[in-house]
């Protein structure tokens, strides 16, 4: 019997497990697989506009931020700050002043908190920068990137392609491949010796985010020192290293705190029919060795929305919640689900579970469906987090609130 059972191993689920563990609960985290952090920029988006706290207080009462409350967001941000410093993977930024980062497309992404390797050097319109790609790396295009940055009013002095030592690889490289080359300090020195002569006149250099997966903070500092250039990393299309580093940071922390993590086993909800109150008793896991029951005092559902499998859209225009078959809020007419351009605000992004301010999924009358079941993150209805630029903020605010309510 565990105190808190978290379902889902994405940013939201991992955070919930740590937050519960910090409150001295026994925590088990189960998931059918890794979460979505390999497609994440690894930053903490809270709100896209420059004045988040004003915007947040104007949201509808049913918006996940309003339901979770400002305190939950602030507590979560503080907690995350502590975790990241303890793990030597610090984030910088503040809620009051947004951090501005170039994307791999040369657009400007506004976020609240970003890892140091992305944000420390920073970009400013009056300071020229240079952009380099690395030979063999796919999905990073310095010319395209700098032309778009210039369209945004920035000055790019040089673009270049930097080679890797050794034989030319016989296949395209991903960010994860190149990160391995930076793991070893003698390798870093070899690479830097090759690069240094090519960086004449460069003092601020943007690189694809490839500088190490583990101990990346140390790797970043050492490469920056070896090159004698101020560096900033730009997240690549998947696999995105800053996302993976964030995943590692959270799962390492969770494990250190004693969280029991079980990946690779899809969970099916179990309902407790014994008492007179409606409760869940836990889940049954499909493991390689057969079905296994896990019992918990409280369950936090952090399985994500339609992209991550917490919600599943069927062909008949229905959407089901995948673990407890909870009622889902969505438009009955399939035609209303999507707008004709992906750049439009999308109704389907707002579909999900209706919850109360304790993050309990509720029925149409507003009553909790199970008194010990809580939801967090993308499975909650009410926000197009892409347009809002609120994904990670909602993840941790709702997770924080769910943990507090579960342990009340």
């Amino acid at each position: 019997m565990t105190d808190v059972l978290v379902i889902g191993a994405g940013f939201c689920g991992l955070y919930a497990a740590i937050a519960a563990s910090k409150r001295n609960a026994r925590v088990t985290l189960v998931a059918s697989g890794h979460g979505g952090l390999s497609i994440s920029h690894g930053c903490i988006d809270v709100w896209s506009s420059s004045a988040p706290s004003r915007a947040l207080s104007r949201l509808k009462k049913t918006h996940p931020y309003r339901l979770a409350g400002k305190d939950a967001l602030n507590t979560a941000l503080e907690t995350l700050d502590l975790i990241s410093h303890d793990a030597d993977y610090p984030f910088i930024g503040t809620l009051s002043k947004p951090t501005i980062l170039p994307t791999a497309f040369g657009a400007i992404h506004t976020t609240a908190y970003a890892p140091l390797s992305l944000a420390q050097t920073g970009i400013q319109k009056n300071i020229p920068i240079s952009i380099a790609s690395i030979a063999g790396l796919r999905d990073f295009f310095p010319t395209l990137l700098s032309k778009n940055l210039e369209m945004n009013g920035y000055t790019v002095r040089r673009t270049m392609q930097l080679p890797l030592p050794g034989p030319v690889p016989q296949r395209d490289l991903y960010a994860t491949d190149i990160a391995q080359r930076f793991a070893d300090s003698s390798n870093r020195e070899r690479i830097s010796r090759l690069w240094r002569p090519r960086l004449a006149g460069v003092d601020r250099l943007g690189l694809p985010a490839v500088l190490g997966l583990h101990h990346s903070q140390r790797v970043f500092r050492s490469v920056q020192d070896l090159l004698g250039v101020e560096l900033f990393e730009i997240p690549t299309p998947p696999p995105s290293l800053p996302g993976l580093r964030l995943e590692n940071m959270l799962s390492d922390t969770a494990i250190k705190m004693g969280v029991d993590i079980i990946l690779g086993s899809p969970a099916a909800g179990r309902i407790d029919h014994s008492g007179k109150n409606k409760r869940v008793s836990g889940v049954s896991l499909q493991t390689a060795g057969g079905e296994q029951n896990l019992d918990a005092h409280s369950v936090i559902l952090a399985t994500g929305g339609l992209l991550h499998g917490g919600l599943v859209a069927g062909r008949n225009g229905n959407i089901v919640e995948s673990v407890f078959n909870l009622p889902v809020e969505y438009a009955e007419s399939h035609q209303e689900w999507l707008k004709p351009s992906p750049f439009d605000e999308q109704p389907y992004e707002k579909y999900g579970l209706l919850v109360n301010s304790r993050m309990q999924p509720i029925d149409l009358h507003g009553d909790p469906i199970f008194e010990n079941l809580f939801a967090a993150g993308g499975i909650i209805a009410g926000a197009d987090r892409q347009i809002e630029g609120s994904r990670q903020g909602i993840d941790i605010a709702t997770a924080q609130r769910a943990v507090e309510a579960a342990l009340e």
Partner: protein
Amino acid sequence: MPSLSTELLVVGAGATGLGIAWDACLRGLKVVVVDQSGIAQGTSGRYHGLLHSGGRYAVSDPDTARECAAENAILRRIAPHAIEDTGGLYVSLDTDPPDYVPEWFGACQAIGIDVDRLSHEDVRRREPSLTTDISQAFLLNDGALDSFDLLRSLAGSIRQIGGQIWLHHQLRGFVIENNRIVAAQVFSEIEQDTILIGADIVVNSTGPWADQIAALADIHIPITHSRGTLVAIANRLTHTVIHRCRPPKDGDAIVPNWSAMVIGTTDIPVASAEELSIDPAEIDFLLHQGEELIPGVSNRRALRAWSGIRPLYNPGQRNSDTTRDVSRSHVLINHAVTDGISGFLSVFGGKLTTFRLMAEYAVDFVAKEFDIADECSTKSVPIDPQRKNYFILPSRAERLNQTGEERNDSVICECEIVTRSQIEAALQSGNHSSLDDLRRETRLGMGPCQAGFCAVRASAMAYASDEAQNALSDLVSFIERRWRGTLPLAWGPSMRQMAFTRRLYLELLDIQQLLGDDS
């Protein structure tokens, strides 16, 4: 205004237009083809990919059936690279009207279409995913015909013998002197300029736009339009074309098309060539029909839905809810006879399978005007494939696996195995002006991820030395087009794929920041 002159001006670079241009070039005529967008952009590129055996029309339209049977044999000779020899299975289900089969069988024999009766065991062995509710089954020689591959190679062959094809050139008006069309004003989207093309004869082969083009010469063509919708499934569940052996109805053909499988089609009367948006009921209907033949098909991953517009000649202008009875065989109008304007023909309708024959009829007529005695030779002159077997996915995979210079070639589109060097070659050919053109040329972005991963890579290559704004607007419109093709299929894996693409573009790349207020 810049000007030039030609003997034959063909408007429209679909199957009909390119077929006519090819035939005319082979007979020694000087030919220019113009198209408002690209090759196979209209109905020709929006069909199910079926090479008819003729069986489908044996009862309802024996003339068309006979033409299909003959052209099937010819196309297998002159364009084998674009054809997959799947065979066609005509199945009658227990619930289908039993009287139809003997009638159909007799009609096929009368026309001379070879029909092999298959036992239940043979059907099961050949196509195990088919329903067991089959009462009778017959094998004919239908096939899969890739119209992109066919028309791309046809365009290359036309250019090789001196024909000119100008894409992104839109016909804007005619110069008419003494009731004869003597020239056409053509607007070049590339040069942003109007060109005057003098021509002895103009052929209007613009399919569903034929009425709009004729209207530029103040001529009315009574066309009605019918939308046919198709759904591609990301897996092949049969290796044979499957027809329902019953009086032709909607949704009764399934065509395995190289790596995918297409279910079609519907028949919805619409007002114009532009009414392409799909009614969700059409998708439900098609999947339901597919389910009757292949149980479980509707739970497979749907790849994309699209629709094409059939131009139907309808001089009687009947008000009818169904357009299926209206003439589908091809139409050749000599406007000298019908409208008193000479030097102007309209050719439209017909099927992709019989495009060569339509062209032959049309060019026979043109040759008479020019006093050319040369006979049509398109029956026997092979179409140069240009790039052999390029459009077949396994052959692209095989090539990638070869040692040698291509070994270091990187893959830009993983789903369709399109490599960097293939895209570079396409870019150098100068036939493209957008990522969508590049897609038709190389199959970029046509697989399950629908360009989610490859669009930015291709954009970075195509616009390496162009302005950022041009690259951005083309990329956005490409992504939006791919998105629209999966809109009616947004459930299960397609839904997740769409959500993934949106996440990638809006969050990780944050492209909408560059769109600013336009988004």
